[in-house]
């Protein structure tokens, strides 16, 4: 079923290969940016993917890319289709789809705050979402080291000290080595 949908869309929108490694009824496909809106519209209005389950991002810091995943659901046929879109990490500007699904505005607000991906035109996108008074880099970016930040902000309780068995044993058993 998924394959049929894919075949109908693939050539018109130059989709990447259909990735069906996950469970049955769930597939992912890569697509290019200029086709995002037409594909989403087509899927929603023609193919019955009426529900945007989530919109989330992955930080592929090694490739200098953000990957946006639009996960859609077709309730009638019990199908889930994920559209994957890659953005330049240094110029992270996505395209808002709040007019297709109003709920996307919330996801986009979250992505703006947690990943620093801009969505020009999305309602209230620049307002604070979860964080309050956040001035550092967006915390879901992978170059944000949460442990280091935590230790620089919220000091550990004192009196914690640990020894590595191999070093400790070496020093005691072979003090001169």
């Amino acid at each position: 079923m998924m394959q049929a949908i894919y075949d109908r869309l693939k050539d018109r929108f130059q989709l990447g290969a259909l990735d069906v490694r996950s469970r049955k009824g769930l597939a992912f496909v890569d697509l290019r940016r200029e086709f995002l809106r037409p594909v989403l519209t087509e899927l929603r209005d023609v193919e019955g993917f009426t529900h945007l389950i989530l919109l989330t991002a992955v930080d592929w810091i090694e490739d200098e890319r953000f990957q946006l995943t639009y996960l859609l659901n077709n309730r009638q046929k019990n199908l889930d289709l994920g559209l994957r879109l890659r953005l330049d990490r240094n110029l992270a500007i996505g395209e808002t789809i709040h007019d297709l699904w109003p709920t996307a505005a919330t996801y986009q607000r979250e992505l703006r705050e947690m990943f620093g991906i801009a969505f020009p035109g999305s309602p209230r996108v620049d307002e604070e979402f979860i964080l309050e008074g956040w001035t550092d880099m967006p915390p879901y970016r992978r170059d944000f080291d949460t442990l280091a930040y935590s230790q620089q902000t919220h000091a550990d309780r004192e009196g914690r000290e640990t020894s590595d068995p191999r070093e400790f044993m070496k020093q005691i058993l072979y003090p001169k080595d």
Partner: protein
Amino acid sequence: MKHMDPNFRKDTKTEFPQREELKPRKVTTPDGQVIDIEPLQDYFCQEPPKVHQKSYFKIVEDFYNWCRAESLWILAFGTGCGAIEMRPLMTPRFDAYRYGIQWRATPRQANLLMISGYLSVKTLKRAIRTYEQMQGPKYVVGLGSCTINGGMYWDSYNTIKKLEEYLPVDLYIAGCMPRPEALLAGFMELKKKIKAGNAEGANKYAEKFDWYKANQKAVIKDWDMPDYNW
């Protein structure tokens, strides 16, 4: 042990801009007057908390303390996951009411603030306001690992680790989360402490007010409230 980037430095330079609605501004009233409004000054009380003396007669204070201990009103504000452990206490299974422990829905009427687990910076702000709205003598109990040293959220960018730096804590109860029985045992200990006249957290807070405020402001960057919220 989790990997940590030794070169990571948090941004300590950027100041969080004051919120628009808190900036001083001029407002035209319906009858045409133009008045200055400075929200932080006008909307809130600016008076720091005072140290309150004990009753002059020891026997009276002892009696009061006994009553305070036997009428422990807890604020029903679930700050973290431990809130779920208080429900069995309210309900028939453990029925804490028989020990004089009751839950109140408003900080004004509560004497005991339970910090029931992790406190994100955002919740900390609410907890501080809540605590300051409570009437003394008031008590704070920290539940579980998170309040002691960060617990599961030890590496979180947004969760505080040591509760006693922000609020005067009377008692910690270990667990993740502590079971209702452990909570009850903790309450009994707190009662003993109150009866002995040692639960003077509110006065401690007033005495070390500047220290507490400095700690609070070190983590709450958008301090959009007055220093003292009664």
